[in-house]
């Protein structure tokens, strides 16, 4: 395929992109193959240099690296450092990369317990789970468990055009209200919608399932007011803790709770 394409006469460069996965379920990479009707156009914007999950061709001359997953082994640390040296833009792609994700629940248990329970008697290497920004500088965060393909498409188009990439600053409640969904607090449930960054189109709450905060905190949230709301309604603090800890995305706010 041609390296340079044009849109209404204006030339643009395909993004030389690579995708790498670490400790994760690979569900965020899979989203790249979703939204099938726009997939050929989407791929037309990309020069895929390295993407093991779908292609046997592997080159190391990429500009943008999508990093999926968290880090939990030394060989992953080394692989990540190498990618950081090559990539002009390193993207923490998905909740595991941005915050550690559900994998972080592992950190509540000592390493010996993990190995004894799952691989008794076997020499297995594992480290406490870390998010990507604990190890290298991250240029762009795309949160979500999984990421929302429409948001990924929007960001890729911004990168091609060289325009500013932004995420919604407001909470999930805004998107939820726009769909006239019954508030889950009214149904007696704790929902993290009021404190979580929007951009998912409130997919969980519109399915009557509480938000577990996979996109991390919205900007300028009032955690103290949120906690007061939960207490005022007499809802379970154990349930609240389980939800806030689920994706490890609210770690900096957890001290406020006491």
């Amino acid at each position, binding site marked *: 395929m041609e390296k340079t394409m044009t849109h209404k006469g204006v030339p643009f460069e395909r993004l030389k992109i690579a995708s790498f996965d670490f400790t994760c*379920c690979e569900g965020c990479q899979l989203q790249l*193959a*979703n939204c099938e009707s726009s997939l050929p156009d989407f791929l037309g914007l990309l020069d895929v240099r390295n993407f093991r999950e*779908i292609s046997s061709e592997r080159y190391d001359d990429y500009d943008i690296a999508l990093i999926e997953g968290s880090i939990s082994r030394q060989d992953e640390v080394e692989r990540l450092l190498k990618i950081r040296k090559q990539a002009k833009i390193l993207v923490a792609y998905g909740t595991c990369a941005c915050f550690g994700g559900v994998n972080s629940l*592992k950190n509540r248990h000592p390493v010996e317990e993990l190995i004894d329970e799952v691989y008794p008697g076997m020499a297995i290497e594992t480290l406490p789970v870390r998010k990507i920004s604990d190890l290298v500088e991250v240029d762009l965060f795309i949160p979500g468990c999984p990421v929302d393909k429409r948001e990924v498409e929007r960001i890729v188009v911004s990168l091609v055009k060289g325009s500013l990439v932004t995420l919604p600053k407001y909470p999930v409640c805004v998107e939820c209200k726009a769909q006239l969904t019954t508030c889950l607090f009214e149904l007696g449930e704790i929902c993290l919608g009021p404190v979580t960054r929007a951009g998912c189109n409130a997919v969980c709450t519109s399915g009557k399932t509480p938000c577990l905060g996979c996109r991390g905190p919205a900007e300028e949230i009032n955690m103290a007011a949120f906690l007061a709301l939960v207490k005022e309604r007499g809802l379970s603090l154990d349930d609240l803790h389980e939800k806030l800890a689920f994706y490890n995305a609210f770690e900096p706010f957890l001290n406020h709770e006491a």
Partner: protein
Amino acid sequence: MKRDYAIAIRHLSRVEGHADIHITVKDGELVEARWAVVETPRFFEVMLKGISAERVPFLTSRICGICSISHALASIRALERAMEITPPLAAEQTRLLAMQGETLQSHALHLFFLMAPDFIGTSSVIPLMQSHPDLVRAGLQIKELGNEISSVSAGRCTHPVTLVIGGLSKAPDKQRLLQLRTMIQERKPALESACSFFSSLVMPDFSRETEFISLCNGSSYPSIGGRLISTDGVNRDENDYLLMTNEYTREFSTSKFTRLSRDSSVAGALARFNNNHALLHPKARETAEQLGLRPICHNPFMNTIAQLVECVHILEEAENLINSLLDMDLQEIKTPYAPKAGAATGAVEAPRGILYHSMETDAAGHVVKADCVIPTTQNNGNIHSDLRALARQALEEEKDDRETEKLCEMMVRSYDPCISCSVH
């Protein structure tokens, strides 16, 4: 032909997760053939300890990005059986529909994105968009349909939203079900054209007799729950899954191995077909006949064809499930429950084969003990043994190392391994 060579494939491409293939030949003799999974373990069984039953399906679905619905439903089934909860019929039908969508999506991904490049001789699906546009279009249409079925029935295709303990958090929208039925009808020709492409292919001639394990309920092609059976005559209760799996570790693999009556066994589309072909929709049975797939088939390359046959079945089955949901009022979708102590197994047929979740709860409904046995784990032993047999056959047929490498890669891909899932 070289008499000495070593094949060392690090992080095999076009499969989900990280695994290596090693083959060593000295003086024209096979010295070693190894299937080594090097994926990073995540320790889900330990993470699950202390988690409330209500939250469990949202955690276990994160075991796998491709078969998240199967994981959610295996946990839900285990916990509902442990806490003696019976979901309403509408929820059961909706769950079955969600399973159809997930399997269709997963099979389409494997058939068109992962396998088709091997048959055509390209490195990925991207060049096929130019060289085989009709095939790619058909593949995308089928994959999109699978995702749409899952979205309508489970709220989202990857990491479902509405599948909860007791039933559903929200019923599928009837208007969307109607649109979905039309979409299925409109996309049948795409699947037919894909079938004629695959019928033109010649599958590598390789067979090694083995044991095929799947669910069986005697009345419909298996999906959620049932007896555990094998082609060697094993027939057990769902709760007796440990007797089916006998997991053990190998020092070169972070993914475990299993065995039943022989050294290795197989789960997946071919296993389901071999055990349940009579329960396929007549159209799917006809497709199997046209594609040369007959039970009991021991050629692992034919797993790809069994998946295609299942796609034909799924389109018919999904249409029936939609019709039955449209006839219901969809008001009663969730059984209220009080958490309690208990233990049970939930087995489902994930796209890649039988998946077991075993859950034990305390009186408050928190998980005390969890165990998940993944289909790919149950295929590791067979992949490992097949590699040895295939490499030996390639030597006898005087294939060179490049040809052997390609053939071995393709054989492993035929199993559609889900490696990060197997190293949960």
